[in-house]
């Protein structure tokens, strides 16, 4: 169940990343009623070369095929540490996920079949889902409970990934 859901998410996301600038992508639905899962423990989520390339565009010459998995982890962490303090906090995780779920958000907003009110409530549910996912990540991986993920805690999460059936 979880695995299929994630696959749906990833398909949509890859779709967004590849056509990021023009916003013409297919409609992807997230099951907003599903239990939030710890997205950091999903290797394909973290080590998505296209996503990383997108972030590193105009910064460095980045060849995702030459990068090691650990390097992709590092770039995921660094790319979403918006204030460069070497910590990922809840807000940074929220925006990282918001970026990933962009497709869903856009599809909700441009859905002409439903009323404005319904679109609004769907958007609220999406935001709630993202927040719940961040809560889940912090609950699992913020080992010292300070509200921040250090690189250590982030990599520890990577080592826990086999727990999740992807």
């Amino acid at each position: 169940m979880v695995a299929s859901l994630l696959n749906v998410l990833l398909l949509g996301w890859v779709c967004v990343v590849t056509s990021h600038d023009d916003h013409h992508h297919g409609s992807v639905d997230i099951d907003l009623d599903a239990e939030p899962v710890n997205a950091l423990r999903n290797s394909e989520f973290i080590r998505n070369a296209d996503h990383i390339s997108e972030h590193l565009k105009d910064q460095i010459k980045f060849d995702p095929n030459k990068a090691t998995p650990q390097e992709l982890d590092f770039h995921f962490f660094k790319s979403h540490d918006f204030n460069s303090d070497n910590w990922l906090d809840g807000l940074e995780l929220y925006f990282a996920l918001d970026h990933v779920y962009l497709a869903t958000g856009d599809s909700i907003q441009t859905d002409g079949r439903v009323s404005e009110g319904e679109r609004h409530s769907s958007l609220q549910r999406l935001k709630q889902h993202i927040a719940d996912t961040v809560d889940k990540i912090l609950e699992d991986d913020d080992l010292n409970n300070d509200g921040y993920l250090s690189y250590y805690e982030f990599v520890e999460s990577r080592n826990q990934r086999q727990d999740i059936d992807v």
Partner: protein
Amino acid sequence: MTALALRSRTVVVLTILIFAVCGANAPSEPRRRFEYKLSFKGPLLVQRDGSIPFWTHGGHSIASDDSIRITPSLKSKKGYVWSNERNTHPFWEVDMVFRVSGRGRVGADGLALWYTAQKGVEGPVFGSNDKWEGLAVFFDSFDNDNQHNNPYVMVMVNDGTQSYSHETDGSHQQLGGCLRDFRNKPFPVRVRVQYYKKTLTVWYHSGMSDNVDHYELCMRAESVTLPAEGYFGVSAATGGLADDHDVHSFLTHSLREPDTVIQGTGPGTVLPEEDLKKYEAEFDEYGHKLDKAREEYQKEHPEAKHHGEQDENVYESQDIRELNLIYAGQNAIHETMNELNKKMNNLISRNDRIVTQIEARGVPVQGGGGTGGAVGIHEIEEVLSYQKQLTQSLTDMRAVLDHVSSRIVQSGATGQGGDNKLNDAILGHVTSIQNDLRTLANKPGSANCPQSSCVTTFYLFLFMSAQVAAGVVYVMYKNHKEAAAKKFY
């Protein structure tokens, strides 16, 4: 026996004292946790639909990626931003980074940071409603009461009944505050509000440097009661004069006592040291690699914007440059002063430590309920004065001794002839006594012997035999009498 008991009690008391001291130090540093649902921050502040996650803004406020402009610098505008989530943490700390800037020498009206039981609505007090229940920290730019005491940072706690007095700038209603000019600073101004165990503390950062450690205490109040649960918010207003009121970030940390049991943790809270080092090394390695790659990319694509560099830096004017240089110079001076201050404090504390050590060693601890350990300065002074007195009396004694010996020497020197005369006189007397004795020895039985005492040997024996005879007669008579008495019985 009692001495031993006393000593052991002293040890116990001291041990308890040590534990009490350690225990008193520890709670001063509460554990912090970042509450992202009660915070917002640049450089990524708004979502694509223009909303701020977990916050609602309104009025004339404008949210952008870097900051929220609560009011633009236009006349009579009001704006606000309030947290959607209700804070349920009993202790908390808020760091707000903001900027108040305007072209005029005087600005208006000001900015307010709120923690209230209910979300505020647009109103007359710095853009929010009056008679609020909870805390307000005002950054009041305009001098309404003409006391020349603005811009002012003012803290006010309201129970929901008081009405803010605009005429007096709330000067009689304030809990505390400090006079600080927060307008038009080279760097954003910061304020830190902490509510921990009924103590409310406000620190202020002047915005003269980008060093985040340059906070100074603005006010502290104890026994402050704030709503147990409430909403955080920021509001601002402009009047006849107008400033831009921009909030760059609003970061909330919940605080808890260090010994509180941690809830909702992951697999474990103990971080293995070697893993930590390994990952740190990995992180540094990739970090260096990234920096190098950035430099290389920069060389190959000189037209590309350097990562993190602001657009306006390209158009930095001569004036701004000079101003920045002046500020940099001032900051260097400030930092040096701070450094000196720190060193001075270090020296003072070291000095204090040495003094206490000396005191501790100077007076032996006596088993008396732990009172022997503490030695006051007056006691040391007393001992010193005793010592001085002793030295003084010793000097006096020495002087007296010197005097005496000098007198002896003097008299020995001057009185030599007198002694000879005395000896001659004594010798004369002794010789005359010898002569007298000799003459006495040469004249035995002279007129000195009295006649009555010179009995002859014959008379002596006569008396002796008469006495013996008398004795015998008496004994015989007594025997005869005793025999007669025996017969009677």
